[in-house]
């Protein structure tokens, strides 16, 4: 399996900077997700790795070889597209065998490899059908089989689950992950859905506006977002971000709310806010807020969403600031009623108002 390295890789379309110079190392067998909203540069980056797109600057290395200017077919990479790209006039079996046939493999090898892959993805019952008569989920399995049968150095997947219904996406997500664990194949996966990224990725590269915002494990990007963008983008809904005043170890939140800042944050905040107006952004995830009768913070219920196993409350701190609080379904929260809650001090983060970067605290655990 491959180690893929991007060194200062960038892409411009005329004056438009689609991907600003980026460095990325993908280790053998790693599942790396390029995550970001439409237009952030993730698909362009993937295409540059595959050779379907030229780089404007920088180099791409595959297993220590400089492949920046090598023909896409010389890179030994399999590409899985969002819209399956199956040949409609061939049967499923012929579709899967196609890459091997065009490489001139022997009949026996082809039969054996096709069988392997078909068993792995459990699509044996579809072999004689044409893609047109298959469901979206099945078509995507066939597309995966076709990519797998080549045993390439690496897999590049461009939003393969994007065109599937929500319920299939869940199943296929687990299947792709299961496949990855069994095959241990180096995979670069592009998506705009942060749930997919968190569930599947060994590491996530969060991108926005052609720039890499953060590279980290799911736990890192979720609990230690590097800036406001990552904090908002990861998690559904994103992190609650409220502009507050910090004075002397206490943060004044909208409404009459005051939050005591844990001691290990105070040093970092004092330093970060020196010479400023004392304004800072506090961030906490909906599950960090616990609604309870004795909560020290208070707001008004603006809306209450049913999410199946839990309820998501939209709480007004004052007229403008709304935070999301996750609550179990046992208590009901009618609209307009006040709700009291606490914020878990261990799960609080701070961000600089101007730079939008996370303020890091000095503590042993960070």
């Amino acid at each position: 399996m491959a180690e893929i390295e991007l060194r200062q890789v960038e892409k411009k379309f005329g004056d438009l900077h689609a991907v600003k110079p980026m460095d990325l190392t993908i280790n053998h067998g790693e599942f790396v997700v390029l995550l970001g909203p439409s237009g952030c540069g993730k698909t362009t980056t993937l295409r540059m790795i595959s050779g379907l797109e030229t780089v404007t600057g920088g180099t791409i290395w595959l297993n220590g070889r400089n492949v920046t200017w090598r023909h896409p077919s010389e890179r030994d990479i399999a590409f899985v597209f969002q819209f399956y790209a199956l040949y409609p006039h061939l049967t499923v079996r012929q579709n899967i065998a196609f890459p091997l046939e065009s490489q001139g493999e022997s009949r026996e090898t082809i039969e054996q490899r096709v069988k392997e892959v078909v068993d792995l993805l459990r699509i044996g019952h579809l072999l004689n059908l044409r893609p047109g008569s298959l469901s979206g989920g099945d078509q995507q399995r066939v597309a995966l089989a076709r990519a797998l049968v080549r045993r390439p150095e690496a897999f590049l997947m461009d939003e393969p689950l994007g065109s599937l219904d929500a319920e299939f996406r869940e199943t296929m997500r687990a299947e792709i992950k299961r496949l990855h664990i069994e095959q241990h194949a180096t995979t670069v996966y592009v998506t705009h859905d942060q749930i997919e990224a968190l569930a599947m990725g060994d590491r996530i590269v969060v991108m926005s506006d052609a720039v890499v915002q953060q590279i980290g494990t799911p736990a890192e990007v979720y609990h230690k977002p590097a800036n406001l963008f990552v904090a908002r983008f990861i998690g559904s809904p994103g992190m609650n971000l409220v502009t507050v005043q910090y004075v002397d170890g206490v943060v004044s939140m909208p409404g009459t709310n005051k939050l005591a800042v844990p001691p290990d944050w105070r040093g970092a905040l004092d330093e970060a806010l020196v010479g400023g107006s004392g304004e800072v952004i506090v961030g906490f995830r909906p599950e960090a807020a616990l609604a309870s009768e004795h909560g020290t913070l208070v707001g008004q219920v603006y809306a209450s969403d049913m999410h199946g196993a839990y309820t998501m409350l939209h709480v007004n701190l004052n007229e403008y600031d709304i935070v999301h609080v996750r609550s179990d379904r046992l208590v009901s929260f009618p609209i307009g009623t006040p709700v009291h809650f606490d914020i878990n001090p261990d799960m609080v983060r701070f961000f600089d108002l101007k730079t939008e970067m996370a303020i890091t605290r000095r503590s042993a655990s960070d």
Partner: protein
Amino acid sequence: MTNVVLQNITKRFRTVTALKDVSFSIKDGEFFVLLGPTGAGKTTTLRVIAGLTRQDEGSVLFDEEPIDNLTPADRDVAFVFQQYSLYPTMTVFDNLAFPLRSPMRKTPEPEIRTRVEQTAEKLRIEHLLERKTAHLSGGEMQRVTIGRAIVRDPRLFLMDEPLSNLDAKLREALRVELKHLQKTQGSTTLFVTHDQIEALTMGDLIAVLNRGRILQIGTPEDIYDRPATTFVATLVGTPRINMLKANCENSTLYVTGSTIRLPIPICEEGMPPSFLLGLRPEDVQPHSGGEFPGEIALIEPLGVETILHIKSGEQTLLSLIPGLTDLRMGDQVRFNIIRERLHYFRQDGTRISV
């Protein structure tokens, strides 16, 4: 605004029956969601209500009056398509004004201007009014599409998966906005989707549709807590419900192919010889002193919670636990099953009420 009633709507397309005996009613001001997989007949239902497709049997009533013989224009409904509703050669302003400029309406230009500007404000797109729609982002385009529907102030909104083509994050944001808009306007809305999260979070009432048939109509809580069929139970709820083959013997429930057995009073009451047990992932909790053994087959960390795939005998159960976990793939675990919210279904998929 209006209330809508569908009575026994059937629609056939040559060999396929797209809708079979579909009936439901939407109250004035309600946000009604039609939930179902691709191909279930959701779009056909909307088109029948709008008058773009003629049903073979049954009747559609607005405020108790059958409207089957009215043209789409006369029905005064607004249709938000999934795509292809913005005219690429016109500006955002002209797109929003288009419905008001229809010969049927004869609205004077100054009034058109005011209404377009008001609508643009509501959707926060005033700064885009002079732009050509081809130069908008996906989210902006969708706002304009919704604006085109709102500007008319029709008696009914029909929305065909309007958020499906948007990025996940945009979808989240627009979901909230749409619901808020609907509540403040009090507009009767029929919203169609395949995404159960949209249905649960936005709907006042949900109707689950599959292969042209309505399976269940209820509030989000009804649909989630008391699914009428295995299809509804599997469709709604993420991660999906564990549906396990089971049977009763000597007042104990045995899950086929697993070591799970539960002494349950229901077993005394004449259950069918073989049935299905529906178990939501949040009701499967690993615990060091847990009753049943299992092995971790897959871990999906979602930040706020983690999905564990636990192998118990031949069955794999999904378990939902809060936060992150130290468990690794292959770990042997013990887990408990919370019994307060078990679901039982016959082999044919229908719910067994207890």
